[in-house]
């Protein structure tokens, strides 16, 4: 589904990613863990197409297309979704209103007819249940006055509405209490299918109790330095990142 090859990326001249390799296939869940400053959010940012980040080397192929060559919205049309670490509040723009435009522009990009108002509302009702999002919240202005938990649930709601091929969850667990975490994880799990995949970027192992990954990668100093199964996450939780640091220095 996505193949990230030897990616180097800068922000303001400072190199953050230093040759990152990662391949994700359909049906898989990959977790990316790592200490602060390792480049986790930079990875999410270059996948979504943030212009402040400059990719100086390497390639990203998504469903056979050169991802880095696409505009942010074209990436969304191709089936990429980023759940933001800090979802933006947009006063005056209604959640469902903008989602309808998003769905229709995606359909248009695929040469499909716009969704009917009836089908759309049915979809809103169906998908808002997944994350237990009050339908009133769904029609309010985007994230305006939402609590931290509501914002993250809204991200998963949007993900459910757009049904992406690849979802990148950027520290979706940060700032969530245990109940909200469970709801968010439940949402992500219910959207899992053999046709789609997700990359879960997280700081803590906690989220991975609920979203069980097929692979766990350790991102350290701009590179993936270790890959394992879910037990690697448990090991990290127990020992911290210092042993990785030590291993790196030995190597």
């Amino acid at each position, binding site marked *: 589904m996505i193949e990230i090859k030897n990616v180097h990326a800068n922000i303001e001249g400072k190199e953050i990613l230093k040759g990152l390799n990662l391949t994700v296939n359909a049906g898989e869940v990959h977790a990316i863990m790592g200490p602060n400053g390792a480049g986790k959010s930079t990875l999410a940012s270059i996948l979504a197409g943030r212009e402040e980040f400059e990719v100086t080397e390497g390639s990203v192929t998504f469903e056979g297309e050169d991802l880095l060559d696409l505009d942010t*919205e074209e990436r969304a049309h191709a089936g990429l979704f980023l759940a*933001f670490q800090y*979802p933006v509040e947009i006063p005056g723009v209604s959640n469902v209103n903008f989602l309808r*435009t998003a769905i229709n522009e995606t359909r248009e990009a695929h040469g499909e007819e716009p969704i009917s108002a009836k089908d759309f509302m049915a979809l809103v009702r169906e998908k808002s249940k997944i994350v237990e999002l009050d339908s009133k919240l769904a029609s309010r202005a985007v994230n305006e006055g939402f609590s931290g938990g509501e914002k993250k649930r809204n991200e998963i709601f949007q993900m459910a509405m757009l049904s992406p091929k690849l979802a990148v969850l950027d520290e979706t667990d940060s700032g969530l209490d245990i109940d909200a975490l469970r709801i968010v994880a439940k949402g992500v799990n219910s959207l899992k299918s053999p046709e789609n995949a997700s990359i879960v970027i997280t700081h803590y192992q906690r989220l991975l109790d609920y979203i069980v990954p097929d692979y766990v990668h350790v991102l350290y100093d701009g590179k993936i330095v270790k890959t394992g199964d879910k037990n690697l996450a448990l090991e990290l939780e127990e020992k911290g990142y210092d042993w990785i640091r030590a291993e790196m220095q030995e190597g």
Partner: protein
Amino acid sequence: MEEVLKKNKFDDLRAHLKPSQLPFSDDAREQAERLLKETDFPTRKNENWKYTSLNGLFKLPFNSESNGSVSVPQISSSSKRIFIKNGQIESDKSIPGVKTNWESMPEMSEKNPFDALNLLYCTSAIEIVFDQENTVDIELVFENTENNFVFPRTYIKCCKQSRGNVIMNFQGAEVNESFINASTYIEVEENAHITVHKIQKNGLNTFDLQREYVNQAANSSFTMNTFCLSGRLTRNDLNIKVNGRNCETFMNGAYTLKGKSHCDNHTTVDHKVAHCYSKELYKGVVNDRSTNVFNGKVFVRKDAQKINAFQSNANILLSETGTINSKPELEIYADDVKCSHGSTTGQLDEEAVFYLRSRGLSEKSAKELLVKAFLGEVLEEVEHEDVRSYIEGQIELHFDAQ
């Protein structure tokens, strides 16, 4: 001798205009003539014209050349319409409460040289009276498809205990190069409630100078909604005198400027008596090399206690080359009032644009949605649903044409 040789710039302009045939009094004519002789043509040295230059007026062709057509929308589905095409009143069917002759029109009551010019060269005089029988929306449709001078003089009266809506709908062909110079007098009697909606969708080279003079009697409410959508230069002077107690006054404005458009809204609310409320909200977006000027003034006179007056102007710059001059002003002589004013200028939130794009919206749709949300605050104040939906559509068009 020197006096004689000194040519007034108003004379240059008058050379292009045809005197009005309307039967106003000799007194009014004399008064207007005198005012034009005594007043210097406004330049940037004049505080009221500091950011707006009228030099372009002298380059207008005044050749009556046709610019093709313009499709004129009916704004309010329930309105009675009067068509004024290239200055001339076209409709001949009679509408209750509307007169299209001079009769009881007020003459020179203001000391503004452009009002004097409007009187002497008036192209249409329309009087609209709302009373308890005549309450239907009246729409004045100014259709401009020739390079002409268009000098409408309009008198609107809302009688005691009555309600009314007037829509002044200025629509010009895209390449129109007219000079519009409009004076509108509005009399709001006791317990009357009136809203005037003004839509200025002029040709890209049209100059449009307008003045409204409003008098409010006790317990009345007056709302002015101004929408500046296009035109080379648009200047509005909204003057409201609140003469009676317990009045409400609302001034809402929205503008969407691009190209080389220059838009200037001057508003004055004069609270002469106590116990009144006024609220002003002007918001707009400025793109390309366009310029917006806002100057809002609220007076609270010495004995006008317990006044609540709010004034706000907010701008979004969509380009690096747009200009915004904003000056909210308060002049308060009473000591027991609640007044506030403010002005903001910023850019679209880049983070919000990125967020929307990451969901699949094109950059254009994302910006359009954010601008609509920004201007939505003004549209929320517009109670007339047809007017609101027309303006919403125009905001979308504004982005389509880019």
